[in-house]
């Protein structure tokens, strides 16, 4: 259903933005940005968190009005902001923040405002059928009649991508579409993007994974602090060149690499975490008797496909989800199911998968969100808190994680996606936990910040002897781990205990391929 116009018809840029400026209160998000998307080409847009990428996307999509500058499609001035429908006919967008309508079904979300049917009516049958086909193409057997409220982060992302592509516009904006995607879905996305560009569609692709940009983009643009600092064919730039452009010459050197550090763990140390034949039902993938241990200072990675139960395992340990079988022990003490408060007291620092749902309080400030897990320490005996104390506790972390904000009391809801993620991470580590449970902690975090972040996680564990359980599908993040456990269908499939880990072998294992049996009956 993707309308594929011949590239020939396109003379000049499909979309052109000139001198775009946008200010939010005290934040100057965009300072005169010029950008053009050529038909049949994919332009990569990269930049640090808070550089202004998503703001630009919102302006190109007709969501925000620019303070200054013009947007034009095929040389025609853009429609008035009021006529959002006209924008939709010209440009389709996958936004960084979830744009699904939770109570509506998958089918309806895919065909939002464009349902098939005669005379303003909705033909449910046809809509379900088309939606089902679309989902099939994405390799999803999910019932298109499920409300999106019941979908996982990845499934929602797929729905939004399917919606944008199905719109069949000549121009497509993708703002970190792969942040929540696994490899298969990612590869499908790439092949679709290639098809579309071949068909003459102009694509803007935003990602913090530079390798992705190199893989599918013809050109790349770097935006720094609201200004375009570099535009070139990908062939003419190196990865480091891009990073330097993103962070600026001054800071380039400062960006450390996520060096692996040897674990301080000694055999006889009592384990920080013991997961003993835990089973738990969950729409995010159920657990069927998983067992594992994490020793002091040890960094254990857990990975697997969607619905393999990776996220569920993390949620169970953090008390965010209940379990109906087995035991979870922190430093030998059993953790009652579904009690995040007790998990916190037991020393668990939790970085949730869905930051918008569980990561922060949008209306509250950066400092307050960051210190939310340590109020008991900041407050006096009677529970009174000094904002200054909060700021004091939050400031070093905010600086270290390079959280870009207008001030530590700026509502986190106003921060850029990546900076929101950093706040979520800071909230988990500020308490100096004995066990860090991190689910895809680097999602949406820019390259420089990502290495800092991973470096910190490695450092914390090494220095404080905290254990780390890193649940992620970003195989590169697993490099800091000492062991990696692969889950398949809610059971331990195999374990890699000798870093560096072979990427291909890991991928195979997640697919359930590879003969190595699970250690000592853990998966029974």
């Amino acid at each position: 259903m993707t309308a594929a116009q011949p590239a020939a018809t396109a003379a000049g840029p499909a979309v052109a933005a000139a001198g775009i400026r946008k200010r939010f209160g005290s934040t100057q998000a965009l300072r005169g940005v010029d950008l053009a998307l050529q038909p049949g080409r994919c332009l990569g847009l990269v930049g640090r968190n808070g550089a202004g990428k998503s703001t630009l996307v919102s302006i190109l999509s007709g969501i925000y009005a620019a303070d200054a500058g013009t947007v034009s499609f095929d040389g025609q001035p853009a429609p008035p902001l009021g006529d959002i429908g006209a924008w939709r006919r010209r440009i389709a967008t996958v936004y960084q923040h979830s744009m699904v309508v939770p109570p509506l079904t998958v089918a309806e979300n895919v065909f939002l405002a464009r349902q098939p049917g005669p005379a303003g009516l909705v033909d449910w049958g046809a809509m379900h059928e088309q939606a089902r086909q679309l989902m099939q193409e994405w390799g999803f057997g999910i019932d298109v009649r499920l409300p999106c409220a019941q979908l996982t982060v990845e499934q929602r992302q797929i729905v939004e991508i399917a919606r944008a592509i199905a719109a069949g516009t000549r121009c497509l904006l993708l703002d970190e579409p792969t942040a929540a995607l696994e490899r298969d879905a990612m590869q499908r996305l790439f092949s679709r993007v290639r098809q579309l560009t071949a068909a003459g569609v102009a694509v803007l692709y935003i990602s913090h994974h530079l390798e992705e940009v190199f893989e599918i983009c013809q050109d790349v643009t770097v935006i720094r602090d609201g200004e375009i600092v570099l535009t070139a064919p990908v062939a003419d730039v190196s990865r480091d060149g891009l990073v330097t452009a993103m962070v600026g010459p001054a800071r380039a050197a400062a960006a450390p690499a996520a060096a692996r550090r040897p674990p301080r763990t000694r055999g006889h140390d009592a384990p920080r975490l013991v997961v003993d034949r835990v089973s738990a039902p969950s729409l995010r993938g159920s657990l069927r008797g998983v067992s594992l241990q994490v020793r002091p200072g040890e960094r254990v990675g857990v990975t697997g496909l969607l619905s393999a139960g990776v996220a569920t395992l993390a949620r169970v340990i953090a008390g965010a989800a209940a379990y109906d079988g087995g035991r979870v022990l922190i430093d030998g003490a059993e953790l009652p199911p579904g009690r995040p408060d007790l998990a916190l007291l037991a020393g668990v620092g939790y970085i949730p998968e869905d930051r918008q749902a569980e990561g922060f309080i949008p209306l509250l400030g950066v400092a307050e969100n960051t210190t939310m897990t340590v109020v008991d320490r900041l407050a006096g005996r009677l529970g009174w808190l000094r904002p200054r104390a909060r700021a004091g506790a939050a400031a070093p972390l905010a600086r270290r994680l390079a959280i870009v904000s207008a001030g530590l009391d700026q509502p986190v809801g106003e921060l850029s996606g990546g900076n929101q993620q950093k706040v979520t991470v800071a909230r988990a580590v500020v308490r100096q936990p004995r066990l860090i449970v991190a689910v895809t902690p680097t999602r949406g975090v820019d390259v420089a910040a990502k290495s800092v972040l991973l470096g910190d996680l490695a450092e914390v564990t090494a220095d404080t002897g905290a254990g780390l359980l890193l649940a992620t599908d970003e195989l590169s993040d697993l490099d800091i781990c000492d062991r990696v456990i692969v889950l398949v269908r809610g059971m331990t499939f195999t374990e890699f205990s000798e870093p560096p880990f072979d990427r291909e072998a890991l991928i195979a294992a997640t697919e359930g391929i590879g003969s190595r049996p699970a250690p000592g009956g853990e998966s029974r």
Partner: protein
Amino acid sequence: MTGTASRAEVEAVMQGRSAQAAAVSLLREAALLPVIVLLVVIGAFVNTAFLTVANFTGIGQQVSALGVIVVGESLILLIGGMDLSLEGTYGLAPMVAAWLMVPAAEYGAGLRLDPYLAMLIMLLVAALIGIINGLLIVKGRLNGFIVTLGMTIVLAGIQLGIVSGNSIFNTPAAFNYLGSANIGTLPVSLIVTVVVFIGTGLFLRYHRTGRAIYAVGGNLAAARAAGIKVDRIRIGVYVAGSVLAAIGGLMEAGRVSAVTGQQGYQEGIIFTVFAAAVIGGVSLRGGRGNMVGAASGVILLGLVQNIMDLSQVSNYWIEAVTGAVILVALVLARVIGGEATAE
């Protein structure tokens, strides 16, 4: 919401078994059914006169007006709004209509307009009220709750003011028809209300604008981004709600063949309206709910009122018992409906 899903539920959903999924959404709507059945059984025991055609058509007539205004409020709740002024319109609209019809001696405006013209004007007045609310809330971005609260006081004040606190009695037959006439044994009001429910239900389910209403209430930003003209739809819904409230008010006034200063605001009917909608599963957060639920909410409240009436509970305790029955019904529906009905 997944936190406490049972393993069975979860497995089913993961395997994409649609039956399960459909069942869940169905449960939300059907959860009240067993409670309603139970009430009917209780009613039968309370009073032999309960299980009679006369009594049921009676109940039907009594809840018709409520039903129509509940449809209006449900639409507004679906877009994530909340309109308290519907009760003001419910009282003012019929007052205006009657005021335009009857002679000055009977506290009319003295215009003695043709009843049908007067009722047409009534609908226009209602639409105007809806537009004002819509503009203040959508364009003026004022808080809808407090805007419509202010508005309902204004409307109730006008309702009182134009007739100097008098009631208009002996309203013309054309005015009373909707609320008091019967076709065969069926009250006209009941027939109209049923039609309104079914029509709105189909519209919400099968018309794009109906689906857009859900989208707007479910996620305004997403709806706007998808190209839905959210402002137009929101304002339109406020207008529709007001017009439905006016029609409901006309039914009620016709039923008592009089318009009093109490109708609407002073009797505080809006609480009953919200109760019916919310008991029926229409969410106050918008985007969730349907006409099947709303209708069962209305029926449930009508039954409770009727059974209380026939039960001859002591004067002084009847109110407490009524409240208790509502609470129990609520808990029952929640228990029967399971997760689907949890907040």
